[in-house]
């Protein structure tokens, strides 16, 4: 789509885009190229010596089982966060869609976690699940669960998944609700007249019609799980135990900042960039299709 009307000026548009382009170049492109450059170097922490090593950082990564594990962890983590988050939000949205009384109140009560920083969410859950003082840990132990996420990877994973899902539910909920409310009532009424039960109506009419929203949320949630959960992980498990919750972004941060291994961290950044670009292309294609549709 293009505007029919245009203003003509040989300098004004450049002036107008200048701030954005300047910031983009300085804080996006320069660092991105820097990352690519560094991924070919081995440097000491203080930047006093560096050597060009071609693809050695990448080769090391491919052979590093911790890195491969991190891939697996990321896959498991984002899958869980995405599916649990979507499922719970969908149930809530379906329930809220049909509620007339108190709909606004429910909505208000359900959306505020979006405003909570993931690091703060992490802190809240770290407190709830703290091994010795946490109230949920206490309840779990009282129920006979051997709850110790500082050692048990699956429990640590569960913890960060719960915290991330908690934070993401409001977002999914809002989109599902909007999606549900945009489905023409007449369609559902027609199905009801055809004799379909509510459950059947949901699966045969509502859910398929929601699929654009669902697909969109799928991508957004995967991206969320990839990046926005950094705060949750840093505030709770810090990637442990034994790397069980070390997602890719956390490893980039850890290796680059805490372990001062800039070469490896940069190589991981480059790999992440490729992944993100792939994800974006998927999303973009989807948007294109939606436009045609």
């Amino acid at each position: 789509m293009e505007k029919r009307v245009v203003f003509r000026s040989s300098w004004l548009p450049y002036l107008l885009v200048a701030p954005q382009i300047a910031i983009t170049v300085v804080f996006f492109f320069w660092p991105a190229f820097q990352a690519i450059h560094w991924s070919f170097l081995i440097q000491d922490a203080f930047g006093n010596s560096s050597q060009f090593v071609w693809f050695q950082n990448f080769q090391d990564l491919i052979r590093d089982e911790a890195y491969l594990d991190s891939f697996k962890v990321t896959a498991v983590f984002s899958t869980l966060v995405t599916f649990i988050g979507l499922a719970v939000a969908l149930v809530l949205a379906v329930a809220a869609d049909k509620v007339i009384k108190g709909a606004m109140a429910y909505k208000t009560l359900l959306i505020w976690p979006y405003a909570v920083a993931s690091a703060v969410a992490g802190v809240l859950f770290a407190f709830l699940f703290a091994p010795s003082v946490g109230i949920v840990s206490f309840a779990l132990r009282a129920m006979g669960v051997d709850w110790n996420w500082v050692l048990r990877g699956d429990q640590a994973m569960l913890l960060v998944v719960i915290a991330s899902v908690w934070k993401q539910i409001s977002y999914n909920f809002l989109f599902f609700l909007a999606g549900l409310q945009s489905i023409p009532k007449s369609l559902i009424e027609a199905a009801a007249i055809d004799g379909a039960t509510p459950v059947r109506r949901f699966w045969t009419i509502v859910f398929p019609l929601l699929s654009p929203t669902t697909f969109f949320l799928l991508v957004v949630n995967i991206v969320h799980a990839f990046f926005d959960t950094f705060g949750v992980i840093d505030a709770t498990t810090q990637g442990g135990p034994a790397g069980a919750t070390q997602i890719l972004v956390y490893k980039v941060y850890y290796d680059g900042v805490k372990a001062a291994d800039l070469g490896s961290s940069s190589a991981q950044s480059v790999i992440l960039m490729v992944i993100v670009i792939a994800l974006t292309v998927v999303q973009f294609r989807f948007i294109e299709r939606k436009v045609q549709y």
Partner: protein
Amino acid sequence: MTRISLQATLVACALAATGAQAQTEIQLWHSMTGALGDKVNDFSNRFNQSQSQYKVVPVYKGSYPESMTAAIAAYRAGNAPHILQVFEVGTATMMAAKGAVVPVYKLMKDADEPFDPKAYMPAVAGYYTDYKGNMLSFPFNSSTPVFYVNKDAYKKAGLDPAKAPKTWKEFAVAADKLKSAGQACVYTTGWPSWVHVENFSAWHNLPIGTKENGVAGMDSQFTINSPQHVRHITMLADYAKKGWFTYAGRRNEAEAKFFSGECAMLTSSSAAQANIRRNAKFEFSVNFLPYHDDIKGAPQNSIIGGASFWVMGGKTNNAYKGVAKFMGFLSKPDLQAEWHTSTGYVPITLAAAEQVRKTDYYKKNPGTDVAIRQLTNKAPTPNSKGLRFGNYVQGREVIEEEIEGVLAGKKGAQQAMDDAVRRGNEILRKFEAANK
């Protein structure tokens, strides 16, 4: 900013503004929180009042890794502090950073400040001394892992509270009893790698790595997959399975489990004593770390943890004179004795240790001398004077990951320690390559 440093800054600003004869400001970045932080401020103030040429400005910069990261970034950006407190695992990284740091022995020599490395406790100074015997950084807060026992729990389990287990064999007996008596958590530990790999090695006179634990050269290799190491880790896993050992995390999370009474025994830093004393509602004792009596030479001596002050490069000679003066000030026996008794960290000079010993402090505060005694149990061997591995922040994490893997039942101890050695060596090689 803490209030005191804020004041200091204000004063500095005021001085600069009035154009009065400016003092040379010395930035000190540290990671000491709470009472420890107050002590650092207090020492700085006292130093500032003792003379008028220099002004030490202490700034809390977050945890050890955070403050080190900040300093590295600041160095790269050209505004590093004069003095940086670096935790023990960062030692090799700092040593390798030629040009970024000024070795303390050189600093003191250039400033004509009296300095005798022999005045420092060998178990402490050794950690920060290069192969030629030159002290590279100034040890500040040093502690060592000790063994805490809940005497009340012992009593309840029918054990003799006055007799804490000396060996792991005795430990097993006690653990069994405690468990049978219904103790929810028998034993836990803070800092797993520091206690159960690094100090385990030193305590049993076993090498952690070749080349004298890396002190003699960057081309060292880890040796923590020896049969003795594997046996110890296997034992821990076995204890965990029996419910005698509860893993609490990589840092000091275990301490809360001990002073809340949940766990009856704890191995963690000697510096945790003050905290435990404040919070524990029961009697406890501080003891030497348990050892395996069938390993020859055990118990040897334990090694330290904590942090030292590194002097960053690229500053004026005048500022370095001030830094040297400050370090001289900090080594004074009075000050060291005060630091030791008020914080639980060990004194760094022999004179200070002697001074405290002469008082009745240890009698009044049983257990506070355990750390020193343990550190000086025997003259340090190449295996027990310290360690120096490149990028050991990462290296230690690898070891801890592997131990966690064993405790979680994911792999056997042999496999885990082999993996730890292999992965650790990769980090060492990379560090070696980066610091050619």
